[in-house]
């Protein structure tokens, strides 16, 4: 075996090592994602259709709930998560608002502006479904943070879309309610339990 071949083989080993490491990280991420999804309610869970109540107590429990929502959102590799998606009927959601960073919004009031734009959207509560949804491209949010302090946010693009999506969850509205009839039909077909021969 020549020097070159040996080096090449060594390089291949390194490359394989990196691949293994990458595979391992990927498998860990996937396991975390499944762990998180195991706690996020999936369609047709009735909690997803219930509207949430205004938050009146800004206590330790709310802070812990927000922490948990943030961790679940990151682990599930989502950009937003509403409290109703974990079965807590309180008007709270968290989003990864791009440049604005992580945001936890309590009792949000949204004002939607900008040109309506249709983009494909997915949802952590509707695993395999992606449907086109029309949303405003800008949104102004007034609400409170988990300590009860007033907050005001102006979001655009994906963050604005995520905020509208999560605010819909607080009213029991899902993306399959906001899409066109054909996409809805296709999505419901995917969501219908399928008989499996095992």
């Amino acid at each position: 075996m020549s020097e070159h071949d040996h080096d090449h083989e060594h390089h291949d080993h390194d490359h394989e090592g990196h691949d293994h490491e990458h595979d391992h990280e990927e498998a860990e991420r996937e396991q975390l994602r499944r762990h998180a999804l195991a706690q996020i309610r999936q369609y047709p869970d009735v909690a997803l259709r219930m509207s949430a109540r205004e938050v009146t107590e800004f206590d330790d429990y709310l802070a812990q709930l927000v922490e948990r929502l943030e961790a679940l959102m990151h682990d599930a590799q989502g950009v937003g998560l509403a409290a109703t998606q974990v079965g807590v009927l309180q008007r709270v959601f968290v989003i990864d608002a791009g440049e604005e960073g992580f945001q936890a919004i309590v009792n949000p009031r949204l004002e939607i502006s900008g040109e309506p734009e249709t983009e494909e959207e997915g949802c952590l509560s509707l695993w395999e479904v992606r449907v086109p949804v029309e949303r405003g491209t800008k949104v102004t949010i007034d609400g409170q943070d988990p300590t009860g302090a007033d907050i005001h946010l102006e979001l655009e693009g994906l963050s604005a879309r995520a905020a509208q999506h999560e605010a819909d969850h607080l009213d029991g509205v899902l993306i399959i309610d906001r899409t066109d009839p054909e996409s809805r039909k296709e999505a419901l077909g995917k969501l219908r339990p399928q008989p499996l021969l095992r």
Partner: protein
Amino acid sequence: MKRPLAEEILGEWGVRDVTPPSQRERERVEADLELNPLVGRAIKRRLRNFKPEADTYVASLGGPLPYMQRLRAIDTETEVHLERLRAAYAENGGDPDRWRRLAETWNFVEVNDLIDKHNRWYPIEARLPMNPRSRDFVQVGGRPYRRRPLDARWVLEHFPA
């Protein structure tokens, strides 16, 4: 009874080419044998009218989930307290005032912390179904999922003064 006949009677049989349509069906099945990857493999017949759930997947990978472990810990801790209380009752149960004082000062901090965590996070972690009418969680085994924290009243219910 001969086995082939029994199979035929019980319906465990292939397509019978007794009519022109069934003959065509048999030909199609025979042609499929060349392409079908399941040829020669036993097909399980259990019908599953549901999707595999993520939590069962996780449970199968790593054993009991955290909420299951916490519930077990609450039950174990409660049993330990009952044992210790039983011993203390045998010693002090004769004096009602003393027994009441002991019940009031009994230390339940650790188990009550677990119960508090269970009451807060169990419905989320176990994705406990909700009743849309009551807007509350369904009962588990005919009882609300919430556990009552242990206190002097609980002690005196089990070991009256």
